[in-house]
């Protein structure tokens, strides 16, 4: 017994000795709520590794991408120790700069594969290499203002399809004299709504093998048609990222649809609206249809130029591969864990005061299993640029049908990427 105790304490000592060995400073690049979320994991990290100083720099989403690509192009110049990367955009990095990031398998990530859902890894691996660790995911839900819905006589439980949503929107229009809309859609600035609806209908820019353009397939046609219907019924307004937040703060929209990470955005931007918000599943295209989709979701990678890779990996492991780390980020900024064990954490079932005491995380995570797969590929930005324009043109009436618009989009994406249009 004594022997066991001795060897146990020896093991513990060895463990803490290794932890004490890690020292120095690591820099982390991230954006907005995600950066704040990573910051919230620092205390638990420093409990294990007191000698490592973590500096999280919030550069903003676009800037992280741009500076990362520039840094990789310059052979790893000016890169941080931990780099945040969106799943959709990840493949550009691996395919253009395969040497810019550390293969996390060499640090032990291969042992963690089963702890995450398989779909989260597809965009993060290339060949045998595993370039980033899954972080959050973006199950789409509809956030709504309980008070505004109630005043307009709308019951969210009855909104099951997009047609129901439009009918509700007409009630809201009537009640508030068109001063409150159902949602803000990015039209001309982004194509998020198209992506969310396309994914819901099992369609995306490219097929999952990244070999063909599939944007003119039936699921995508339905998606674009729905957006046009929303505009024609005048139940939505237009605005970019900033405009959407402004509308939420000003109470000009009664709902907002986004990946669940938007929970933190609403909560931190409109703290005075506590208790007024709630969540319901995104409406389906037809009765009984899929009411789940994914928008966004990110990962963390270690640039090869990092001088402190061991500490960087320890940080990533603590934040992403432990239920404690993931739940801390869920609590602080609403980042939806993709770590399977974290989705079973008791916190998920807790009623959230901001959301009118609804256990929103249970609702949101419940959709994860229904999310159809989709893949960004290295041509994500090319396809997105085409689609932003085609969507805006279609809303404006430049195409006769959604199918005609998407055939045109497919042709343009194909000529920009060299990938054939799927039959």
């Amino acid at each position: 017994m004594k022997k066991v105790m001795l060897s146990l304490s020896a093991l513990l000592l060895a463990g803490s000795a290794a932890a004490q060995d890690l020292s120095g400073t690591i820099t982390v690049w991230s954006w907005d709520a995600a950066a704040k979320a990573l910051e919230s994991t620092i205390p638990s990290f420093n409990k294990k590794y007191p000698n490592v100083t973590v500096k999280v720099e919030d550069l903003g989403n676009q800037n992280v991408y741009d500076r990362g690509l520039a840094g990789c192009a310059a052979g790893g110049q000016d890169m941080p120790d931990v780099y945040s990367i969106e799943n959709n955009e990840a493949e550009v990095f691996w395919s253009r700069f395969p040497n810019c990031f550390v293969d996390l398998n060499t640090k032990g990530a291969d042992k963690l594969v089963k702890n995450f859902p398989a779909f989260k890894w597809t965009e993060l691996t290339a060949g045998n290499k595993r370039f980033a660790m899954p972080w959050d995911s973006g199950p789409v839900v509809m956030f709504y203002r309980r008070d505004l819905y109630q005043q307009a006589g709308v019951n969210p439980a009855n909104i099951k399809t997009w047609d129901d949503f439009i009918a509700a929107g007409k009630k809201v229009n009537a009640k508030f004299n068109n001063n409150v809309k159902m949602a803000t859609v990015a039209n001309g600035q982004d194509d998020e709504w198209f992506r969310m609806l396309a994914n819901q209908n099992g369609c995306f820019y490219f097929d999952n093998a990244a070999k063909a353009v599939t944007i003119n397939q039936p699921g995508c046609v339905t998606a674009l048609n729905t957006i046009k219907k929303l505009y024609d019924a005048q139940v939505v307004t237009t605005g970019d990222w900033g405009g959407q937040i402004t509308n939420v703060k000003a109470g000009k929209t009664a709902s907002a649809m986004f990946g669940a990470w938007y929970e933190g955005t609403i909560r931190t931007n409109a703290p005075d609206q506590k208790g007024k918000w709630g969540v319901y599943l995104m409406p389906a295209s037809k009765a009984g249809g899929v009411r789940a989709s994914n928008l966004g979701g990110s990962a963390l990678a270690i640039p090869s130029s990092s001088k402190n890779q061991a500490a960087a990996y320890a940080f990533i492991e603590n934040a992403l591969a432990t239920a404690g780390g993931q739940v801390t980020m869920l609590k602080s900024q609403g980042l939806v864990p993709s770590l399977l064990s974290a989705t079973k954490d008791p916190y998920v079932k807790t009623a959230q005061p901001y959301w009118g005491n609804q256990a929103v995380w249970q609702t949101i995570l419940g959709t994860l299993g229904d999310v159809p797969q989709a893949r960004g590929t290295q041509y994500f930005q090319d396809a997105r640029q085409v689609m932003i324009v085609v969507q805006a043109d279609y809303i404006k009436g430049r195409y006769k049908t959604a199918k005609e618009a998407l055939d045109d989009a497919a042709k343009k994406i194909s000529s920009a990427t060299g990938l054939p249009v799927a039959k």
Partner: protein
Amino acid sequence: MTTSQPLSPAPRRARTGRWARTPKAPYLFILPYLLIFLTFWAWPIVSSFLMSFKDSRLGADAPYALSNWSRLTQDEFFRTALRNTLVILVIQVPLMLSLATVLAVALNSKLLRAAGWFRFAFFAPLVVGTVAYSAVFRLLFNTDFGVVNRALTGIGLPAVDWLNQSGPAMSVIILAMTWRWTGYNAIILLAGLQGISEDVYEAASIDGATPTQQFWKITLPLLRPTLLFCMVLSVIGTLQLFTEPALITNSGPGNATMTLGTYLYQQGFRSFNFGYASAIAYTVAAIAAVFSIIQLRLFGRET
């Protein structure tokens, strides 16, 4: 004719030793600059030309081919960017230069008090950081909360969705550029005005020329070289236009305010397709060169 002495022929130097007698210090002094010029200017120019023949998305080993150039000829986005750039060019440059000329004449007037203060005020927009001024323009033209729409609705006009509609978005870009660059051109034109001799005006007044006649018959013709300089600079600047559409409208809505500059950036740094971006860059440079030659030919002749 006593001075008609034959010029003595220049002494012939031996071919050998010519280099030995040339002073080397000047070359040594310009050597650092030459090295920097070759590394950071000349080489990238050559390198990007070579790159325009490669599909850089395939990596460094991609074979040389014409794919980027053939894509350019049929790329609808490129045509949109070119068209937008030309629209801005045709509207904004003449608008700005006429404003700048009027402003310069006003600033040159002896009737104006505190001329120095006004000169500073009109030049000041250029000192403001581009990001800051773009952010301010975004706020001014915000549909729901912007002061411009507040003013419009205040006097009973309908509010305009400035940044989400193509026509209004374009006019915001043109307004912003005009606000920023008119004073700059006015200051250059003012320098040109001050180079015109007072005697000419005096003579004209004695002959009975009205101020309007003086402006059209004296000021404008004598200001032509300065105007030409401003015009060539503005045209080249507009062809490279990037900041305003990138920061105020983000090339949108759709591609309504996408310029050659933002499209190049988008291809280079969003899609990371440097080969294609290089092909675009060379096309822009060629267009700028052609425009400059045309302007110099049309307006550059000395009278």
